[in-house]
């Protein structure tokens, strides 16, 4: 029985403190300290929302050994606390869900918490993460932290697991959380320029921590010794994309690897894509191939950089942005931008859902629902932070995205 009060899980951290570490909230299943606002325990994967589902489906792949109690996969959102008798009935037929995670009558899988979840660490910052329609598993992940005062501090991390790699859903979730934890450490002080440099380094560290998680996920589970040798193929190690956006007062700093994106969607005017995809199509466009030609190719979405064991380069590309008016910072996976890629179109779409003073959770939910209406071909993640206006000018506010040199040749980014 979960003795965790759900309201305690979503309570914001003490004002002024970085999120998480001082909290006394613990996982009811394994006892690990958990971050308020988290929906899943990072240690054992148990759902932290009251009335947890039970039953972990046995590991996927061609060969599985199932004892009578199949082992839970971490972060699957369904490691049953033994006494959780309040299992939800089967969503398809209303029958009882068995211990193995499937309905006893119709065989439909228990709905995993991971299939659709949201986070809202503060009233002005939220995210919704959804499985979409065509994929049977949600390999997208998001992790947020924020201070309660609007516009003061927020970290938004989105990681999209690469479907063709094994256990990428485990990789994306642990990567996103590791990055968020690095970004939630003590904040740099000083002037804007100093803080931009400090955040650039911090985001690079966050990407490294995320990469370490992705590399560490055990991909051997599905290629076990019992797989007939004729069946063994080279299974790709788990991989995911990475985008982390930090709001620190008047500045926004973003780092990315792969094709998950961050946008600035100002209330009046500026609608800008802050990141550039590491993708085949983006490479082609960079060489002068027309956008329509590049994006129509079947290889268009192949990503050229990612996090994971066989990653060629996990150093994030860093950009900064200083808004000159109120607007929304949007961080999303390709499950959304595949249906609405241009910043101006995305701004129009968002504004169509956003009356003045909109709640970011509802807004993110509307965008996710819209993407599902377009077909839901992929997992969809939408993270939003409301930034209401620039802080008093402190010198070099530019209102334009500028690349912070990261040691690569300057001028390679717009």
């Amino acid at each position, binding site marked *: 029985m979960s003795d965790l009060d759900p309201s305690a899980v979503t309570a914001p951290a003490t004002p002024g403190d970085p999120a998480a570490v001082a909290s006394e909230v613990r996982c009811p299943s394994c006892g690990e300290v958990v971050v308020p606002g988290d929906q899943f325990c990072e240690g054992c994967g148990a759902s932290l929302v009251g009335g947890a589902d039970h039953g972990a489906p046995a590991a996927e792949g061609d060969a599985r050994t199932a004892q009578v109690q199949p082992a839970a996969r971490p972060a699957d959102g369904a490691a049953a606390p033994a006494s959780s008798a309040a299992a939800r009935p089967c969503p398809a037929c209303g029958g009882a869900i068995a211990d193995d995670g499937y309905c006893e009558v119709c065989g439909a899988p228990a709905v995993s918490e991971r299939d659709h979840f949201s986070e809202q660490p503060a009233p002005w910052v939220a995210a919704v993460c959804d499985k979409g329609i065509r994929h049977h598993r949600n390999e997208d992940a998001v992790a947020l932290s924020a201070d309660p005062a609007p516009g003061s501090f927020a970290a938004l991390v989105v990681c999209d697991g690469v479907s063709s790699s094994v256990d990428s859903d485990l990789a994306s979730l642990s990567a996103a959380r590791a990055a968020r934890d690095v970004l939630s450490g003590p904040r740099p002080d000083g002037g804007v320029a100093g803080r931009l440099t400090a955040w650039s380094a911090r985001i690079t560290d966050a990407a490294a921590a995320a990469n370490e998680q992705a590399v560490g996920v055990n991909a051997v589970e599905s290629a076990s010794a019992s797989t007939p*040798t004729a069946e063994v193929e080279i299974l790709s190690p788990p991989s995911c994309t990475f985008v982390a956006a930090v709001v620190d007062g008047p500045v926004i700093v973003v780092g990315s690897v792969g094709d998950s994106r961050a946008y600035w969607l100002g209330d009046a005017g500026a609608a800008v894509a802050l990141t550039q995809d590491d993708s085949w199509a983006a490479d082609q466009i960079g060489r002068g191939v027309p956008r329509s030609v590049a994006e129509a190719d079947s290889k268009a979405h192949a990503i050229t950089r990612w996090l994971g064991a066989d990653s060629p380069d996990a150093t994030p590309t860093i950009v900064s942005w200083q808004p000159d008016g109120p607007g929304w910072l949007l961080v999303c996976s390709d499950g959304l931008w595949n249906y609405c890629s241009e910043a101006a179109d995305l701004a129009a779409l968002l504004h169509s859902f956003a009356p003045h003073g909109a709640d970011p959770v509802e807004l993110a939910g509307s965008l996710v629902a819209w993407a599902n209406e377009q077909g839901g071909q992929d997992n969809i993640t939408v993270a939003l932070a409301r930034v209401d206006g620039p802080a008093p000018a402190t010198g070099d506010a530019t209102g334009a995205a500028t690349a912070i040199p990261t040691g690569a040749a300057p001028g390679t980014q717009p």
Partner: protein
Amino acid sequence: MAEFKAEVFQNEYLADGGTDVHAVVSVTCSGAGAAGSSGDAAEIIIVDISTSMGVDKMNAARQGAMVAVDQINDGVWFGIIAGNERAVNIYPGRAAMVRMDPSTRAAAKQAIAGLRTSGGTAIGTWLHLASATFDQVPSATQRHAILLTDGQNQSETPEAFAAAIAAAEGRFQCDCRGVGADWQVAELRSIATALLGTVDLIARPEDLAADFEALMRDAMSRGVASAALRLWTPQGSNILFVRQVAPTLEELTGRRTEINPLTGDYPTGSWGDESRDYHVAVRVAPKPIGSEQLAARVSLVVGADVMSAGLVKAIWSDDATLTTRINAAVAHFTGQAELADAIQEGLAAKAAGDDATATTKLGRAVQLAAETGDEDATAKLRKVVDIDDPDTGTVRLKRQVDKLDEMALDTASTKTTRVKR
């Protein structure tokens, strides 16, 4: 304490509109213990004493029966039946059994030494007497017999024979051996299939003793008296088939005992420390791309205890690289089942004089044996056909075929090889 482990091998991905889910379930038993570990065990040795046995075979049969008696552990109930056109319990006499100990062992061997040939063959009567004899020891939950014959079942009608087999089903397990070339593989196979046992050819009488010794030693190592394969399938689905595919092929589909409308048990008999594979095929209603569904739960049941479980899944996907793969174990055993059918149909056609069909079927068998790496089957096929090209299955029937080679091919057709791991 016996432990069972179940592993599922399958490709769970179905294309849009796909309905059929195939899986190979590999079940391994360990720690079974000796016969009698889970209740009393009982053994009966049934020996053909019809006139056709003759001097050599009868000598070998006596020796084999004595060697088998030596393998039976002390404390196990046992009896000896001599059979011709009727059956007689020659030890301990009447339709009864005694526990093995040094004195009963010696007395049994003396009774065996006194066997003499006479009369014809009506195997059905032997099965009836065996059932009645086992019934005298209700405490014996593990019941097994070895049956030896040398000839055809001439002294009773096929209907009586079939009725006797049906009456014995579920009452004891029986391993059948035919010595020489005059018996009918199909007759002994029908007993072995119904009574969850094996059938094999003993080509030369001098090999009989060793075979019986091995058979009884194996029986003594089976500490789990009786286990069942339990299959749950979801509402609205059909079970296409359930068959054991390793170490031998056995069709189990029709032997389902209903537990509840969604669950049924299939008998698997007694277990020692061993591994067996089962091929299960279920048809479910298709669901939209991205959906997942459990197609079957497969478990091993001993008495009231569920010992192990495996999940057979269906996931609908539009990714052709996932949906077009065939799991290696499923492909292998599908091929092995087709191989067994091809051999049996080919031999039946040959026996009926239909050389054209026999050539086609045995050619297909050669092709499948090559594809599935079944060298044993290839070697046995070579004794019956000349192989021109194994890849295309081009063969010619041999003019002179030793009947024993044909029977060896037939009896071995249900033995399967395993997927190399």
